[in-house]
């Protein structure tokens, strides 16, 4: 037990939490934007997966940032497709979302096979690139807390810092700009927005595209940083956990971030624990993030009922 606590309190572990949180945070913020305009994007998982593969393949032939942009664009495109089917053709958003999730699960393997010339599992023989890490080792010069800060903050992906900035940017957008006000109005009570001359479906389209872009970025981070390359089903439910983070975060950017960090923490824990608890089967440990998601959602919905 002491060993576990010592691990959790170590700077290395905090840095690991930041790393595991980044992709979930991107996807969660995407989910938040779609939820706030009233069409919760349940395809985050599939979009992340497609974003990851796109980023890997493009980055093999172009600079890393073009790879990231390609992941983002693929996500945005999928968001637009969802908007088309859901808003124009009036298909149920859940069904559209699951169609994309299913297409992503199978489609990425097919495309991977073509891209690698036969490998159905990983992109190991594609020379894909990584997102560079931001070196903040000068922080170590600060007396006392310097070394700890350096351990925690230095060496993270550029995208991690972008994700943190997005929390602020989305909060500013939603709560400080007129467009954000309209966004929230559409999500909370569409007739009021309509009466005010706002077209709800246009904002829903923007919301879905933005959520796709963010999920695509999450996918790019997943395949271009700590592990470079694509493996089949590498998102492993992170897109669904992100949905949980949106609901748990009470539809607020800060709340969503806290929820994403919570899930990132348990993911990092499930990575660190097998080294410590050698007697426990690894599979059981890896279920921790999902069990926590279910528990957190149960507790939060219970509070809503009694609140």
């Amino acid at each position, binding site marked *: 037990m002491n060993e576990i606590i010592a691990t959790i309190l170590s700077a290395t572990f905090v840095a690991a939490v930041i790393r595991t949180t980044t992709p979930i945070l991107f996807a969660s913020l995407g989910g938040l934007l779609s939820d706030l305009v009233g069409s919760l994007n349940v395809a985050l998982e599939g979009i992340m997966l497609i974003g990851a593969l796109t980023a890997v393949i493009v980055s093999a032939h172009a600079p890393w940032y073009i790879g990231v942009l390609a992941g983002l664009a693929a996500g945005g495109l999928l968001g637009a497709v969802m908007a088309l089917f859901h808003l124009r053709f009036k298909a149920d958003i859940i069904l559209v979302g699951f169609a994309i999730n299913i297409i992503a699960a199978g489609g990425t393997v097919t495309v991977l096979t073509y891209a690698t010339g036969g490998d159905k599992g990983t992109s190991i023989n594609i020379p894909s690139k990584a997102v560079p890490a931001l070196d903040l080792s000068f922080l170590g010069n600060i007396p006392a807390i310097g070394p700890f800060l350096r351990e925690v903050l230095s060496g993270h992906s550029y995208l991690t810092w972008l994700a943190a900035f997005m929390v602020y940017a989305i909060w500013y957008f939603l709560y*400080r*700009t007129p467009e954000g*006000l*309209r966004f929230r*109005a559409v999500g*909370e009570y569409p007739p*009021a*927005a309509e*009466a005010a*001359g706002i077209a709800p479906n246009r904002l829903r389209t923007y919301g879905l595209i933005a959520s796709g872009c963010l999920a695509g970025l999450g996918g790019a981070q997943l395949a271009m940083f700590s592990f470079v390359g694509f493996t089949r089903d590498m998102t492993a439910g992170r897109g669904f956990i992100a949905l949980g983070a949106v609901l748990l975060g009470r539809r607020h950017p800060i709340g969503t971030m806290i929820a994403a960090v919570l899930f990132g923490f348990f993911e990092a824990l499930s990575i660190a624990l097998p080294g410590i608890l050698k007697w426990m089967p690894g599979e059981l440990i890896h279920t921790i993030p999902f069990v926590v998601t279910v528990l957190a959602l149960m507790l939060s919905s219970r509070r809503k009922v009694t609140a």
Partner: protein
Amino acid sequence: MTPFLQAIGIDKTYPGGVHANQGIDLSVARSTVHAVVGENGAGKSTLMKILFGVEQPNAGEIRLEGNPIVLPSPRAAIAAGIGMVFQHFSLVPSFTVAENVVLGGEPRAGLKLDRKKASDTVRELAERFRLPVDVDVPVEQLPVGQQQRVEILKALYRDARLLILDEPTAVLAPQEVVELFAAVRSLTSQGRTILFIAHKLPEVLEISDTISVMRGGKMVGTVAAKDATEKSLARMMVGRDVALKINRAAPGIPHTHLCRISDLTVKNDHGLNAVSDVNLILRTGEIVGIAGVEGNGQSELFDAIGGLRPIASGSVELGKTDITHISVLERRAAGMANIPEDRIATGSAGGATVAENIVATELTDTRFVRHGLLDLKSIRAHAVKLIEKFSVRVQGPESAIGTLSGGNMQKVVVARELSSEPSLLLVSHPTRGVDLGATEFIWQNIAKARDAGAAVLLTSADLSEILALADRMIVLYRGRIVAAFVNSEEVTPEVLGSYMLGFAEQSAEERNAALA
């Protein structure tokens, strides 16, 4: 002088074949209050929707200050200076008053929403037109009367010169009506014009300058308010004399205790006490009316007695049966019937036929169900009998109930509930959105049930309904009984209103005296 707004020969037939407006002429003078009255289905709403650009007329012309205009959408109407406040508000609950008002036309400072300017502008508007409201409070925390002010402010923010108010008093307590009328007068004195759709004739007479009456899709006539009386208007609306007078329960008949409600506490959807420690005895052959501003626990009280909401503590006894925790079906078997507040959501199944709706509460009755199978012939015969008895206007028992007008749908619900000859009858808002003719009919039938010995518990947003029907009255404020009266001439809407708004509270002795 050219009228501010003129509608000439407006004609509208809906795709379903309903000829809702037939050659309507309407002329509204500037800076006046012009009321349009009529029964449900008279075509008032259709006319207003045409004037606000929601519906398009098949023929006719609209002129604003003498110039012909076309209104293809509400947005065009707003741009032309026409605003409308619907009965159902469109406000975002968590937004502040100022945010709701400026939504869609926000003042900005660079990228940012200029909150200060928004608040200041709205506050100025509110003061100028005597619509006092705290602009920085979320609208969900405001009472209905103030939410209505926010809707009016929204129209004024968009510079509406003509304001259409769709039954604005239906949701208000008497004191709130006084305040609304003060605002309306201040609007007309500042050059705005009000078109006022209404049901309640005393109010119409009080506030209007001119009154137009519609019946059956046609304009029956337009009179100056000072030349009209309640009676003359009612005759124009219905086409015959209407007697909205119900005899009280005859004196001298013994009223035995039938239903005892003891220390009843009920929680609302948020887990808070909606009804707290209510004690009440209902007696046979008597109507008890519950007055209160909407949201003060009436709905929860009725749901709890009706079995649609769990009772947190306390008990309800019907006769010798404790019905506190039994199911709806068991309650009905014990002699309860329920005319619920929402005839569409809880009172009927919209897609099912009239006959199916009528038999829905009788599925244990061997007259209609034998060996687990429906006896369609006797169900049909029963439905035909009730349709005739309650003069429901419907093509036949096989019509889907959702296709009926509000008044006829309500008659079906009333027919079904009364046909079981209940000993306890719960009645919520029995004539909300129901026209005068059907109202008269429904009232008479409730009184008939009372005379047959039923104990009736009635609530209505329309105080005149409670005053017309109830033998005794209680006022609910924040879930508690704050006053009780025996119905008499002295009890007026104003008296009830001060208790409904929480300005006054009776002592326990006064209450008990009226309830004894």
